[in-house]
């Protein structure tokens, strides 16, 4: 169980930079207005970020696209864990069949 000093330095550098990204949002948000366009923008942030993270993954191939669409439709009906189980199972089956 050894830790190389250069590796530790790299880990610490990544950790400091990552913490700055986490605390920065809290620090700037306290100076943001409670209404108006900036508020509208902040309220739209959660779905905008979620979709921006997911869209390139879902459109990375036909199997992912089919499973993504199925997941989207299922999400109106099933609880979260059901959506995950069916989505993962569908991707595994499609990859087995066509992968």
């Amino acid at each position: 169980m050894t830790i190389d000093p250069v590796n530790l330095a790299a880990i610490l550098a990544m950790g400091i930079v990552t913490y700055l990204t986490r605390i920065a949002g809290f620090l700037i948000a306290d100076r943001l207005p409670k209404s108006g366009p900036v508020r509208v923008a902040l309220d739209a942030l959660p779905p905008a970020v979620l979709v921006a993270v997911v869209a390139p993954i879902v459109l990375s191939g036909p199997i992912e696209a089919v499973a993504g669409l199925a997941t989207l439709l299922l999400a109106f009906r099933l609880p979260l864990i059901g959506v995950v189980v069916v989505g993962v199972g569908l991707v595994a089956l499609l990859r087995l069949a066509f992968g």
Partner: protein
Amino acid sequence: MTTSPLADVRAGLIAVFPPVVAVVPFALILGQQATAKGLSPAEMLAMSSIVFAGSSQLIAVGLWSQPAPIAALALMALLVNLRHVLMGASLSGKIAHFGRLRPLAAFLLTDEAWALSERRAIDQPISRAFYFTVALTLFGFWQVASVLGTLLGAHLEHPEALGLDFAFPAIFIALALGFWKGARRTGPVLAASATVAVIVHATVPGAWYVIAGALAGIVAAVLAAPRATPAAAEEATP
């Protein structure tokens, strides 16, 4: 609506269960990849507990060499994790009552903890009990599974055949639907964000696509917002 801390802990545990199912295989793969790059279990534990950010850790392990390229790794972590600034800005007002625990809440901020908290904030305030139950559960599983991955790595060579990598997008798709406020308000946000993210992902290296897509989404939200309606009237609408 107020709930007891115990009820919030239980709600947190129920909410965090699906992300844990998704995060554990991801962490196992991370550990396996780290072993292949010559990182020890102790170094894996140090990285998972100090950095605690999945995508940037996986990319870091991909970039790792001996000696470690410190500046490149730090710059990559900055770019991949810049999305936290947007998440923190959105979450900040909803956890203003955390007080001295806010810096710790920031340290434990992950995509999953953030998304579950934002989802809960639609229905009721985010309590400390809920947030830290979710965040600390994810932290614990992340440590155990990534270190376990360094120990059992050899048996996990083709995890994608099981479709486990799709658990993460499935969770995010389902959570994104929770923010649906009708086609006129939310439709343009999702369409703009998805389109720009896909284009930037295909043309610009790195993780800029998350920032670009999110910015396109919020610009669309501002443009689609009803301008004549006073803010007070909007607040009154359920």
